[in-house]
């Protein structure tokens, strides 16, 4: 599933390692990360105290998630391929993963916000 999500934007890489070993774990972990962060934001902090709950905080979190998506995808691809320098495909992969991280986080936000107390109207 993740493979087609990424290849939709990036096209196929000649090296099958992306489809075989990179896209799925990176996609899964990014999804999981977005879920965990959303859960922390909405269920843990969002039900605990009104300390990190407004739209500004949400955007900060979103940026963190996006940065994570980018860095994680790039590092993972570099590690797996053993490349010393990230090529343009990997950078594109990082960018797209950042985009998906943002999308995942937004979706989880929409799903989880109703269970929050202080953030149930964040960000919309």
């Amino acid at each position, binding site marked *: 599933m993740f493979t087609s999500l990424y290849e939709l934007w990036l096209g196929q890489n000649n090296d099958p*390692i992306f489809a075989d070993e990179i896209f799925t774990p990176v996609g899964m972990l990014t999804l999981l990360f977005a879920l965990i962060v959303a859960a922390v934001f909405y269920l843990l902090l969002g039900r605990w105290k009104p300390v990190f709950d407004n739209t500004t905080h949400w955007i900060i979190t979103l940026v963190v998630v996006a940065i994570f998506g980018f860095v994680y995808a790039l590092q*993972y691809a570099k590690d*797996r391929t053993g490349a010393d320098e990230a090529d343009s495909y990997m950078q594109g992969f990082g960018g797209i993963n950042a985009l998906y991280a943002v999308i995942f986080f937004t979706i989880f936000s929409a799903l989880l916000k109703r269970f929050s107390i202080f953030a149930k109207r964040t960000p919309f």
Partner: protein
Amino acid sequence: MMNQRIRKQSTHWFFLLLLVTLFGCGGNDRGERTERKGKINKDNTTPAAAPAATLNEIHFFMETSASMNGYLKGGTEFKDVVSEIVTKANTIKPVTIWTISEQPQPYKGNPAKFVSDMATTPLASGRSSKLHSIFEQVAKKAGGNSIAILVTDAILSFPDQEIRRDPNINRTDASSVLKNNIYDEFVRMNRQGIGATVYGYRSAFNGTYYDYQNAKQTLNGESRPFYIWVIGKQELLNDFNQRMQEMLTSQPAKTLSFGTGSALKKYDLFFSLNKKGDWRAKGGNVSELKTKGGAPAEFAVGLDLNGLPAYAQTDDYIRKNLVVTSKDASVKLANVQKKEAVTNTSRLSEREQRLLNQSTHVLTFRIDNVFGDEANVAVRLPVRFDNWPEQWSTMDDRTATGRQNKTFALQHLMNGVKEAYQSATNDFLQLNFKIEK
């Protein structure tokens, strides 16, 4: 008011920090994966390799039963070969020397002394001994990080009293009783991951020769075979053989390896090297193959055949013996290349280059046709033993012509060993992959 603002901001930073910490954890488990990076391993069930064994010591065994005497008298190739092997093995790892007829006796002295002693002092004075029990003693020193070398004439024989009772027993029962004794011994070794390589040499023989009926004959410079067995853990053995063969000036006339372990299943499917046609490497399979215009597609796999005996690593052996079977496709071996022979590497990606470097051989296959949407392809490289032991074997050594350059019952000895190893593995290589349209 000011205070409140600062406090508020510090709360924000605290949560940022928390998120960053989460982040850091994600990084950790990448480190662990780095160790396995770059391996496309089709056979996921293969456990991660145990730390490679390193050779620590070498035990050198010299058979000293009376029948060995003839090799030591006068100027014989035997003495040259054995001296060289002891000396050169000693440069790899320290060599401990033993003499053996019934029980191994430690030789007091260093390899240099042994070499000079061999020229001057009569060493072979022991009683004739049963070959399989010699192997048993030698194998005890071949476990762990050690390698054992045995110098022997490799003549199978029943004990003296049995021959006296039935002079033809060696001839009639070698293929059953004696062969099975040998078989038992090597099966035991195989189970411990211990393999064996035989170097076959010939040497002039000056002394008493006992034929299969135990009748003494005096030979004068007659050419007789002798054998050097190298026994040890498979991975140590391959390395040791390679280094010895690089060093030896007196190369063996014949060699034969008995390997242990399962067939090699790991391969890397190259995604651009030697690629022809339109297909995509995916999970070690050829996928999304487009067959248009009838032009055949080609794909290449990289293999690390270092674990195979040298004869099985030759292009020739592979080309002759590799079996490609597929019910639903017609796939053929198109080319076999040693890694060094691959030249068109300038356009390979960094990772593909590394995959190539991990391989010793590149096998290129051609897909002429795929009948269904998907075809399973099986590639096997069967184990074929050299058949020189048949030529080096005789069942009647009473006459000079009958025993010329031949060893009594060698065939049965070798069959015993062969069967011991063949039961474990029939193929050097077993690859399975799919071709998908």
